[in-house]
């Protein structure tokens, strides 16, 4: 059966079928307040997704699974968000449209311009500027300063810094031989990373600290020649985790709620227990869209979207989301292995680790496997900056999946 010839049309058509049925169902559900604009935007997004998948096959000689997987994830996400709150669902639709456009723009820009590995200083300065801007202009939501609001528009600079950070690490290790000759050169990167982590501590944005640390640790583990630095880094990670626990009361609350959520069901553990109730009440096939009560969970459209999906679409869909992320990360690693250009190989690794760790942290948190930290699931949760930065990262991964070296001079290989 596996040998039967199939091609890219099969998953693409399945995706469109899925979206059309879901759209139909949502319109029956919300038939009280339907307007033409909503229908047109829904249909046009389906069209855009189909066309993008089709075009990508022609445009890019690289991987064409990653965009398919991601479009499935965004479809499941936007269906659930629209069901919870039609207004947010509409906003999400628009963000997704911009995100897909940004994916193609990033793809062309990153592919056209050469020498990304030379501009490490630009990335560092830009990141520090963004951090300072966040501290000066940021507004505080639930304990951490991570939003900048300009007029009606607000965004989270740390989402952009995540990508800049991957670029910094990649350009550092691409030019590793050069930095090794300079005195203390091998400490440059660690210095920059701890500066960033210090900024994030000041913002009390500990979920992002965790992401930065793991991406950095993963890439350092693969590329650092001085193995002692890796060990120091892990030790420092443990120590700073302990300090974070002792200094920040909201970390202690999260930790207590993780150990025994049932004891604090009326306050600290309310969110997580509601999430567990929701997942359990859905069963394997779910209650059906519109028939559950995901609105019992606070923050259901961002951090807890996974519980809502499990409740109404079933644990099988939840497992499907985890499987989709696993395939996505696997493709990312495969891209990294095949890429001959060292800079883009490290970037591909970094982005795969980023997607993997981000989904692991929040899915684990929602299922009470690890302490809860408030971050979004890439591509699934509601949130403009998260969607946009994830699509930028995906665009870069798409470039990295292409054979960038042939016909030109062979790239200098460090190790």
């Amino acid at each position, binding site marked *: 059966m596996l040998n039967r*010839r199939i091609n890219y049309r099969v998953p693409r058509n399945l995706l469109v079928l*899925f979206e059309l*049925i879901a759209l139909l169902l949502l319109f*029956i559900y919300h038939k009280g307040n339907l307007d033409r604009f909503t229908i047109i935007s829904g249909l046009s997004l389906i069209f855009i997704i189909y066309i993008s998948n089709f075009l990508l096959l022609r445009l890019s000689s690289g991987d064409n699974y990653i965009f398919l997987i991601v479009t*499935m994830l965004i479809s499941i996400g936007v269906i659930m968000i629209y069901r919870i709150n039609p207004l947010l669902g509409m906003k999400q639709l628009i963000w997704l449209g911009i995100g897909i456009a940004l994916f193609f723009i990033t793809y062309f820009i990153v592919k056209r311009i050469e020498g990304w590995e030379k501009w490490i200083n630009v990335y560092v300065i830009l990141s520090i500027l963004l951090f300072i801007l966040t501290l000066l202009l940021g507004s505080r939501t639930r304990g951490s300063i991570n939003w900048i609001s300009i007029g009606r528009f607000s965004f989270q600079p740390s989402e952009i810094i995540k990508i800049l950070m991957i670029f910094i690490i990649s350009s550092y290790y691409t030019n590793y031989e050069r930095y090794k000759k300079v005195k203390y050169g091998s400490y440059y990167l660690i210095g920059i990373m701890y500066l960033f982590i210090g900024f994030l501590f000041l913002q009390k944005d500990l979920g992002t600290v965790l992401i930065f640390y793991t991406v950095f640790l993963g890439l350092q583990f693969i590329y650092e020649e001085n193995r002692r630095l890796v060990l120091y880094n892990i030790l420092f990670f443990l120590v700073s985790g302990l300090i974070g626990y002792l200094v920040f009361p909201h970390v202690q609350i999260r930790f207590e709620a993780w150990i025994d959520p049932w004891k604090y069901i009326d306050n600290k553990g309310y969110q997580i227990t509601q999430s567990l109730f929701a997942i359990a009440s859905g069963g394997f096939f*779910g209650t059906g*869209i519109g028939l559950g009560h995901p609105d019992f969970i606070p923050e259901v459209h961002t951090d807890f979207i996974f519980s809502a999906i499990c409740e109404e*679409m*079933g644990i099988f869909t939840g497992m499907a989301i985890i499987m989709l992320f696993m*395939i996505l990360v696997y493709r990312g690693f495969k891209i990294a292995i095949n890429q001959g250009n060292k800079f883009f190989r490290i970037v591909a690794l970094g982005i795969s680790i980023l997607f993997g760790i981000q989904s692991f942290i929040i899915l684990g948190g929602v299922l009470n496997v690890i302490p809860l930290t408030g971050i979004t699931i890439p591509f699934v949760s509601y949130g403009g900056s998260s969607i946009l930065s994830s699509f930028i990262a995906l665009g870069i991964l798409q470039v990295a999946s292409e054979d960038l070296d042939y016909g030109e001079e062979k790239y200098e290989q460090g190790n």
Partner: protein
Amino acid sequence: MYNIFSLIFKYIFIVIIYLFILSIIRLIYLDIKGIDTQHLDDSAVYLKLINRKDSLPFKVKEYYILDDEVSIGRGNDNKIVIKDPYVSKKHLKIVKDEGNYYLVDLNSANGTFLNGDRIMDVVELKNGDRIRVGQVEFLYVNRE
């Protein structure tokens, strides 16, 4: 009324999502099966397939390493066998001579094309040349 719809559709959704995952895994399976375990080191001279592998209805590998003499054709006695109906039984060979590689057409019926031009008898290959045989197109890579 809506409840019945929703109850039926939830099963349909799960079936579609899993079919989607299955079809992607199948495509990836085909992709992995084609990975060569041959190691391409820096000095290797090889042919790289330009076509998308699943667009061709016959077996063809992603890379072919070139040594002193490599023949391409539909017949089973060739070093590189391509079961394309537009490829002749003995189509062409690539010969190494004093460090350079030469492409020799063996009077094939449909011809061999180098960078779009049909070649007559013998041509020297340069890095980045595109060789088209039947429906298959290769990139010649020699990074010395």
